[in-house]
């Protein structure tokens, strides 16, 4: 949904004060030729923070991501985070051509350490760059990244990115979510699009990420003149449900009482339904003129709790058929209402 949001920001919110904080919950449509990832319509819930490129902005987004997932009820949430510009700058500094870049990104994305070493040997990487790649592949925490440093002005940009990760770690500490965020140098997907951090959220019980996001500082300008930095994430609702199910979460069963009112006396029946509804009970009127027996059968299938048969007046006792216990009794309408906890 980032593209539509970028369009709206550019065309409709030009005078909005920055930073702009936006959220959406929407169905997303994707064209995919792959037959494995077949979903072409799915529901996403996401946020975008537009107009700010500080580590505070990234920190806020990551903190919001973790708290959203906890709020949903997931346990053992973790976020793995890479850095698109860091990788791009390293690849440029290595002086690789496009084909070599694709090859090394593939090896990194596969976490094929042996293949990576071989590749770097074959392409005679300078030793400091070689060590940086291997060290970064082994880093799991954001603060470990700062131990990697490359001398020389050629690596100014790289060092700047490394420093920004360290700063981000400090921001995450303030939110007390630094223990949930890991560094992952192998996240190299969509680095043409992202310009800063790029991340995925996951839980151990599900084999696919449940959400992802990152910083995209040069995307919004594609929609107009505005050059606005931005960061955000999106959660896949379907995956969240799968993850919750995998963690043994049960959807709470319906606790509301459901009553079907049956009567030969139309106006009394209508009045009974109205009274029940006003008392906060889910009530429906038997409108097919079928027998009480058939109404009870219908009630069983539709998971109603009671079928109530009312006489010519609500003052007369009513017959209450309790579907769960398959028993019936004659009580006053008032007693029935208070028995099922209706608010008078």
């Amino acid at each position, binding site marked *: 949904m980032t593209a539509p949001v970028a369009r709206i920001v550019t065309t409709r919110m030009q005078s909005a004060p920055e930073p702009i904080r936006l959220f959406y919950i929407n169905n997303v449509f994707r064209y995919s030729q*792959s*037959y*494995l*990832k077949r979903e072409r319509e799915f529901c996403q819930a996401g946020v975008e923070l537009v107009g700010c490129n500080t580590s505070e902005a990234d920190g806020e987004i990551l903190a919001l991501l973790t708290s959203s997932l906890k709020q949903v009820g997931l346990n053992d949430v*973790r976020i*793995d985070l890479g850095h698109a510009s860091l990788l791009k700058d390293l690849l440029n500094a290595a002086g690789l051509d496009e084909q070599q870049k694709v090859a090394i990104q593939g090896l990194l*994305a*596969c*976490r*094929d*350490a*042996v*293949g990576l070493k071989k590749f770097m040997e074959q392409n005679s990487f300078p030793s400091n760059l070689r060590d940086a790649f291997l060290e970064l592949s082994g880093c*799991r925490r954001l603060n470990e990244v700062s131990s990697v440093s490359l001398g020389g002005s050629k690596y100014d940009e790289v060092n700047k990115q490394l420093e920004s990760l360290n700063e981000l770690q400090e921001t995450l500490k303030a939110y007390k979510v630094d223990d949930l965020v*890991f560094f*992952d140098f*192998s996240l190299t997907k969509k680095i043409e699009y992202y310009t800063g951090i790029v991340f995925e959220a*996951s*839980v*151990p019980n*599900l*084999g*696919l*990420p449940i959400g992802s996001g990152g910083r995209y500082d040069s995307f919004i300008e594609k929609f107009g003149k505005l050059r606005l930095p931005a960061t955000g994430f999106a959660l896949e609702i379907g995956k969240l449900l799968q993850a919750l199910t995998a963690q043994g979460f049960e959807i709470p069963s319906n606790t509301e009482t459901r009553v079907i009112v049956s009567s030969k006396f139309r106006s009394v029946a209508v009045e009974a339904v109205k009274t029940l509804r006003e008392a906060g009970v889910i009530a429906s009127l038997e409108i097919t003129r079928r027998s009480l027996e058939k109404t009870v059968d219908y009630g069983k299938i539709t998971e109603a709790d009671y079928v109530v048969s009312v006489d010519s007046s609500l003052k007369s006792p009513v017959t209450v058929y309790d579907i769960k216990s398959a028993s019936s009794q004659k009580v006053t309408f008032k007693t029935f209402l208070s028995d099922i906890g209706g608010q008078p």
Partner: protein
Amino acid sequence: MKKIRIAIPNKGRIKQPTIDALAGAGITILEEERNYVSKTSDPRFEAIFARANDIPVYVHYGAVDLGITGHDLILEREADVLELLDLEYGKATLVVAVPEKSPINAVNDVPALTRVATEFPNITRKYFEKQGKQVEVLEVSGTAELAPKLGLSQIIVDITSSGETLRKNRLRVIGTILDSTCRLACNKIAYRTFEKEISELQSKLQGGA
């Protein structure tokens, strides 16, 4: 603790080398494979026997944490998995072949709407698209070499290791699509959960390879 599941091919030429490689890395299969799920000598791992071409999908969705299968099959199933290690056995080449007497001598000569029989429809489709060739891809689930004989297709795309089957069926190679070997594939989330155990296995397998 939850066991780490590793899928291994239940038959075919990569089955035994896989069992041997794992044994060399300290994971010996302890039960008959007809159980589908087998205990191993390492209590942290359990082995799942599955069809080699299904293993990429199992790993992609995290139904198993690890799997050993061909690089060609991972590409064909378009599985988004980590390929942690090239195990270097199970060498094979995916080739484009025509009957010996065919007038087609190169992929470039393939006329439009030629029928191609293959067990690898995805790779085949992508390959010919890239060559700018419009072909009709017929998916068969085995013995693609039979298709030209019966007039089902003029071309096949098939995997070959020694070239023996192609020769026997009087087929001639006109193009190579990719070289493949067996890989240690890993689910991306599982790698995060079991990094210590998995990288230990990775280095042991590498030592044996």
